[in-house]
């Protein structure tokens, strides 16, 4: 895969304030794009803009050197988004939630049980999601991300609600994804210990 994500001259205005102006980046397979900045600096907005959910004041985001706006479906087929709100249904069980996601997006060939085991959620499989803790729900969201066979991971504050072991797990998973030639866009306000090349964007 020669997928490459880049952006030029991005400007975003939300309401009265300009969140960023003339922002550029280029990301190649195996690299992590780290969005740094304080709360409210526009990390989530930039991520939503990359995902094509916000209309930009100026600038364009490119996937394979072609504007994302002209190939939205293909681009969305190549990414998965770990958002602040998990987007999972509290009334449904883990398996029901993930089966729904599986019908929307290309799935990896890995056995789901292996992924559940790795994330430590095997014994939660039959429970309604609302009875799980916030950290456990986040692990389910991670499972959804791992099950999707996509090159680009968008991760908005992936460490929220996770304990130390969970945070290490996220870093390991990210590292493995990058080593496989995947790409990551991550918004985080804490130190990331990852051996792969990191492209930093300071907001």
């Amino acid at each position: 895969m020669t997928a490459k994500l880049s952006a030029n001259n991005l400007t975003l205005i939300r309401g009265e304030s300009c969140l960023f102006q003339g922002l550029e980046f280029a990301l190649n397979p195996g690299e992590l794009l780290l969005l740094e900045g304080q709360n409210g600096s526009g990390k989530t907005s930039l991520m939503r803009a990359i995902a094509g959910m916000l209309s930009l004041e100026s600038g364009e985001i490119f996937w394979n050197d072609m504007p994302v706006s002209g190939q939205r479906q293909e681009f969305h087929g190549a990414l998965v988004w770990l958002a602040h709100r998990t987007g999972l249904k509290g009334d449904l069980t883990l398996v029901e939630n993930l089966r729904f996601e599986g019908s929307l997006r290309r799935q990896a060939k890995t056995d789901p049980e292996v992924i559940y085991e790795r994330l430590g959620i095997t014994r939660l499989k039959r429970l309604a999601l609302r009875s799980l803790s916030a950290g456990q729900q986040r692990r389910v969201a991670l499972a959804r991300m791992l099950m999707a066979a996509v090159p680009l991971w968008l991760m908005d504050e992936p460490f929220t609600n996770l304990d130390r072991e969970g945070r290490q797990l996220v870093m390991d998973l990210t590292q493995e994804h990058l080593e496989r030639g995947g790409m990551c866009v991550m918004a985080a306000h804490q130190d990331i210990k990852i051996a792969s090349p990191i492209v930093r964007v300071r907001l």
Partner: protein
Amino acid sequence: MWKFFHQMASPPYFYRLAATLIPWFAIPGLILIAYGAYAGLFLVSMDYQQGDAFRIIYVHVPSAYLSMMAYMMMAVGGGIGLIWRLKLAHAVGAAAAPLGAAFTFLALVTGSIWGRPMWGTWWEWGDPRLTSELILLFLYFGYMALRSSIDDTAKADKASAVLALVGVVNVVIVHFSVEWWSSLHQGQTVFKKGTMDADMRIPLFAMLIGFSFVFGAMLLRRLRTEVLFRERRTRWVRELVLSPEGGK
């Protein structure tokens, strides 16, 4: 050609252009209305069936016409705004909605006054045009309510544009379904088709054009305010307000 449109759409340019255009709309408009009103009230002879009551068409018909034109403008403006991302086109919708609602209301009131001697009541559900007009008024209310409940201007623009486009398709359906419905119930309209004499028609045309011009002037005026409000954070507005003429 494109360059011209983009220049037109640049807020400071439009703001000044609108100021020069307003008198060109307002003065001919008022003259035509003055003529139409005089001719309609005094020169045109009395209708043998309706007496003097029919003279209200000189206000009613132009109002009803503008009530629909304004909705069309909202929809077209919204469509242009969504496709070409022209902010000025969205502003047209925002500026036209209250005007359109006002003319719809005027059309309803004059229609009801007109119908009173005919029907012996202020409101007759059997009249298809008044009923459609009433639904149109509700469509305007919905549009304005949606606009006012979204704080972010850009978002309000796009959401109301979608609503206006859906609504404009519906206006046509409303028209035909209400016609069908009133034909079931032997509803009758006070409007007669194709029986108007030439000397009655000329003042009516004068009123139609005059109303449209005045509407144009009012719309431009509202647009100027709208543009000024939307651009309130920009430098040109600040310079304009602080300039010796104080925003003239």
